[in-house]
């Protein structure tokens, strides 16, 4: 059986270097080469890998039934595309840049097909149409992977940011604090809890002070989050103290009917710390004749 893309296949074998070069130049002309993000060597490696995978895929596929990129014959190319996409996403290229990056492969191949098949217009149209379909499929696959990879990058950055915004601090041997600032929605409350519980294990902490001095609003939901955190801390075998409860917050909590049960609360972090020290068996003393 004749391969529907036999001329393209031949070109990829004989004209590999010049196609790669022309593809790179088309990318440059389209403004998607991004020399600020990728060195010449990196770009050449990415394009080279794709062209090789493309050649293999075409030679192993029966294209008479249309192109099915999820077939086994395209496994290597899919892996290469995913890898290249991942690299480009990580460095911040946009979805349209990524699509143009792939589609720019068409022009150099079309130009060469026109030269080779000048005498056989039927064949020329056939190969151009087929090759165009293949490249479109690659661009589509890349786009799918692009979205997925970008979601992962965003999720990772969000997690990193969350960790930065809720630092658990060791105040003393076996005493931790987590100063909460801003708003405490369900998502963030869960992160806070997770960070805090992991820190309890890491530091063998026995008392943790959850300081809400910087929390803007304490409504029923926020109060529930705080009490759940305290309950989880207790299940781990440590004690939670909620500190920074201003008179206004105390008033709101009573009005909302929030019952803190057996959870220890303190108006200030200072009062909480004094309680924590007693719990772990330390006391703070005034030193006579202290200087400074």
């Amino acid at each position: 059986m004749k391969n529907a893309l036999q001329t393209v296949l031949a070109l990829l074998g004989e004209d590999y270097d010049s196609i790669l070069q022309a593809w790179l130049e088309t990318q440059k002309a389209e403004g998607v080469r991004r020399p600020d993000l990728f060195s010449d060597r990196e770009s050449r490696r990415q394009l080279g890998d794709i062209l090789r995978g493309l050649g293999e895929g075409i030679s192993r596929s029966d294209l008479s039934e249309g192109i099915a990129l999820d077939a086994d014959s395209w496994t290597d190319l899919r892996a290469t595309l995913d890898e290249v996409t991942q690299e480009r996403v990580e460095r911040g290229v946009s979805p349209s840049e990524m699509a143009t990056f792939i589609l720019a492969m068409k022009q150099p191949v079309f130009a060469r097909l026109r030269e080779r098949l000048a005498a056989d217009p039927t064949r020329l149209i056939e190969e151009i149409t087929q090759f165009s379909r293949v490249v479109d499929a690659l661009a589509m696959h890349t786009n799918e992977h692009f979205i997925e990879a970008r979601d992962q990058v965003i999720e990772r950055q969000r997690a990193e940011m969350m960790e930065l915004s809720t630092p658990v601090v060791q105040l003393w041997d076996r005493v931790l604090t987590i100063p909460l600032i801003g708003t405490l929605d369900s998502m963030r409350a869960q992160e806070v809890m997770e960070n805090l519980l992991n820190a309890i294990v890491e530091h063998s902490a026995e008392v943790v002070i959850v300081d809400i001095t910087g929390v803007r609003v304490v409504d029923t939901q926020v109060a529930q989050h705080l009490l759940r955190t305290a309950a989880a801390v207790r299940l781990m075998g440590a004690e939670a103290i909620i500190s920074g409860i201003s008179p206004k917050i105390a008033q709101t909590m009573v009005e909302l009917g929030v019952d803190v049960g057996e959870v220890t609360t303190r108006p200030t972090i200072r009062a909480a710390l004094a309680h924590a020290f007693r719990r772990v068996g330390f006391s703070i003393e005034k030193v006579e004749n202290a200087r400074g």
Partner: protein
Amino acid sequence: MTGAAAAPRRIELKAERDIAAARSAVSRACDELQASALRKVRFVTAVSEIARNALEHGGGGTLEISASRAPRRIAVLCHDNGPGILDIDQAMRDGFTTAGSMGKGLGGARRLVDRFEIRNRPEGGVEVRMSSQV
């Protein structure tokens, strides 16, 4: 394709041991998806609840696990051989119980997963579908 699912796993729930088998199979599936510790524990706990429910109230059943990578989701389908549940809304309420358990099982499972569907199958038995992003 990137969204290709791993082969689903099937566990027959006939004896108590099978609840543990269901848990560890789902746990492994979560590990393969590199689920976070918390997301995994939440989902496996929910599986434990519905598997026990199928065994205790449904006289046994089947649990099927499926996983997808893009997006990373884990799902189970559990159906039992029992008579079905007369009032599903009531059964989902915390505290409801027919067999002396504390009755947080099904309602608890629903709180631990992203999607939870329960229905009486026309051919008999209760069917629970749950899935979560991990």
